[in-house]
């Protein structure tokens, strides 16, 4: 180290130190992230069952992919999931943050309470909801039948409700995480703005739409961006709660990708799916970026 820094200017020394600090994360990023991405892209042009040598098939995997009805259904389900889950998640988290952004007794207690599901393992939460949603013995159907005399609903066994039911669970699980981000943003708003608004006699809705939301827009943008990316990759909940069923009604691209890679040994085909997903997520993120940037500038 001494040799490396020996006869150099202070600026050079600082630069070398900085490079050394970022070297390790950079190497890990290259090995664990960029290399697999590039490798997946290359494998997508091969037929490979992991056991034999890969065979080059050109764009055959992509051709098959867009004719594969299960993939198209899984893609449809994934888009449906993103459209349903992201707004639900962002609105719920923001509403919780608004509730806690006031002088409350036991505010810390409520914050912990809402954050608790985030620290629960997703497997545990999924199994808990499997019971809540149980058609015959679940507490949800029990309450609905007692209060509204409703017939039992197959929350995760009926294709009409299954994706929505899983979305409710995911919102419950992750709302606390995004709530903290929104809460931090809301609490960062200068008090003087509220005082000025009060003097001007603004209504609560004006306060929300003209002051709070515009000022926490960067946080909303961040939460929406990460929520969209996460939603496109949804897998664990499906694996535990429905295994893609009933039928193909809860198949998502990630679940179908996993099945192809590790159950059917079609690694090339699975990589083609991963590439398509990568492109879709990238495109959606770029569009989102453009729209949100404009909003933030405004």
């Amino acid at each position, binding site marked *: 180290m001494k040799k490396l820094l020996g006869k150099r200017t202070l600026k050079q020394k600082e630069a070398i130190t900085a490079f050394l600090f970022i070297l390790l994360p950079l190497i890990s990023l290259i090995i664990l992230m960029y290399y697999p991405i590039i490798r997946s892209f290359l494998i997508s042009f091969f037929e490979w*069952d*992991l*056991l*034999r040598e890969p065979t080059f098939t050109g764009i055959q995997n992509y051709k098959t992919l867009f004719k*594969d*009805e*299960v993939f198209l259904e899984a893609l449809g389900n994934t888009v449906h999931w993103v459209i349903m889950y992201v707004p639900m998640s962002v609105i719920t988290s923001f509403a919780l943050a608004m509730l806690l952004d006031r002088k409350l007794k036991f505010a810390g207690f409520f914050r912990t309470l809402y954050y608790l599901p985030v620290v629960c393992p997703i497997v545990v939460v999924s*199994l808990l909801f*499997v*019971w809540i*949603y*149980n*058609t*015959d*013995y679940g507490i949800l159907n029990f309450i609905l039948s007692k209060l509204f005399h409703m017939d039992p609903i*197959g*929350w*995760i*066994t*009926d*294709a009409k409700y299954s994706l929505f039911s899983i979305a409710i669970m995911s919102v419950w699980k992750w709302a606390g995480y995004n709530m903290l981000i929104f809460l931090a943003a809301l609490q960062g708003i200068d008090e003087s703005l509220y005082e000025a608004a009060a003097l001007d006699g603004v209504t609560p809705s004006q306060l929300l739409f003209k002051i709070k939301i515009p000022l926490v827009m960067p946080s909303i943008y961040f939460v929406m961006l990460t929520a969209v990316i996460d939603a496109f990759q949804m897998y664990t909940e499906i694996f535990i709660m429905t*295994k*893609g*069923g*009933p*039928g*193909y009604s809860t198949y998502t691209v990630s679940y179908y990708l996993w*099945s192809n890679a*590790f*159950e*059917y*040994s*079609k690694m090339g085909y699975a990589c083609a799916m991963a590439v398509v997903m990568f492109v879709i997520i990238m495109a959606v993120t770029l569009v989102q970026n453009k729209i949100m940037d404009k909003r933030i500038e405004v």
Partner: protein
Amino acid sequence: MKKNLKKTLALVMAATLVAASFAACGSKEKEEGGDKPTVSKENTNWEGAEKAAELEGKLTYMHSGDDYEREMYANVFKSYMEYAPNVEVEQMYVPSDYDTKLKTLAAAGNLPDLFWSGEAGIRAYNEAGMLSDLTGYLEEYPQLTEGILDGVLDFGNFDGKQVAFPKDWTSYVMYLNLDMFKEAGVEVPTNDWTIDEYKDLAAKLTKKSGDRVDVYGTAINNYRADWVNWMGNYGAEWFKDGKSNISSPEALQGLKLMSDLIEAGSAPSPGSVSSTGESEDRLFIIGKVAMYPSGRWVIPSFRSEVDFEWDAREMPQGTTRTCPFICSMVCIADTSENKDAAANLLSYQMSDEGLALVMESALSLPAYSDLMENENYVNTPPSADAFINSSKYLGNASQLEASKTGKWSEYSSIITAHLSDAFEGKISIEEAVEKIDEQANSTVFN
């Protein structure tokens, strides 16, 4: 196999005692040329004992299963090492996600010396040239194939080469809650019962409070053993000439039975059971299902958890009878540097002595006809008749052909998905079988 049970069991006990006493002393007799066996070849009818004493090296053995199996095979390896003191067997027990882990090891060129694979997974490893040809070892150890059940070797035989060996098998039978029969005043069926009688009994044993079902007469599993059994019992050729043929009238008749039971309210739909986080066998254990079709693997938990009278019968017959072949096969990796020792260990595992250590738990059945008649290998409860009888019609030509395509997993997912839609009432069973054939034949077997 020339088996003398009392002698075998005495030997197992003697081997265990000797092992325990050596472990207690903490020492082993060392002589020139390595350790001496602690069990003499004169005291066993296992043909590989003499060779075992001469072998040396290390073997890795990878297998799946539950904790029972981990312990059982630990005993097998420990007992084997008494005969082969210079062979060290490393047990690689994988409790979950076994196939992925095995495939990863294979891709890394690091397969264990011996490993298990499901009967439908052999082809891929064989085509990749990763499996040893066991044919020579079957000649070296004739006891391996002496009295073996008809057809079981076929699942591991590719182009005349035996590349995998069936370590055991499991029958598919109907478990009965006898208390419920008594309570309902219904006669317990005998092994020659028919599918019509089964449907009738399922309806009689179903108990309802208003619209709510308290006890189901039976249960079905959206699982290959059920499909193969019900379709096979009508003599269906549901996979033929490399194509899915599930829409054939006989196959449809078998699968229709399953959907009819759900429609009649005599069985819960598999989706509604899995939505509880439960399984059909748990419903039987807690007394919510009166008749439950399953394999022998449920017996250890039934023995320890069931608190009512229960027994097993053969699956009800249709126009004929078939018993699905469910098994893990043992393979020896082609990359193994110690194939002789690996084959010797396989021979020990399949010997009377080795199987006695495994069959006690009642998780599976021996693949040898004489041991099938032996109550120490097919122990009770439940009655052994159902299991013994089903060994006589074990195997299904369509299952054999489908599993040898190497695409069973993908095919099976298609069947599961469409039958699930039918069982949940989303589409009719007729539509489901049409969709299965159409999708499977255009995407998997095209």
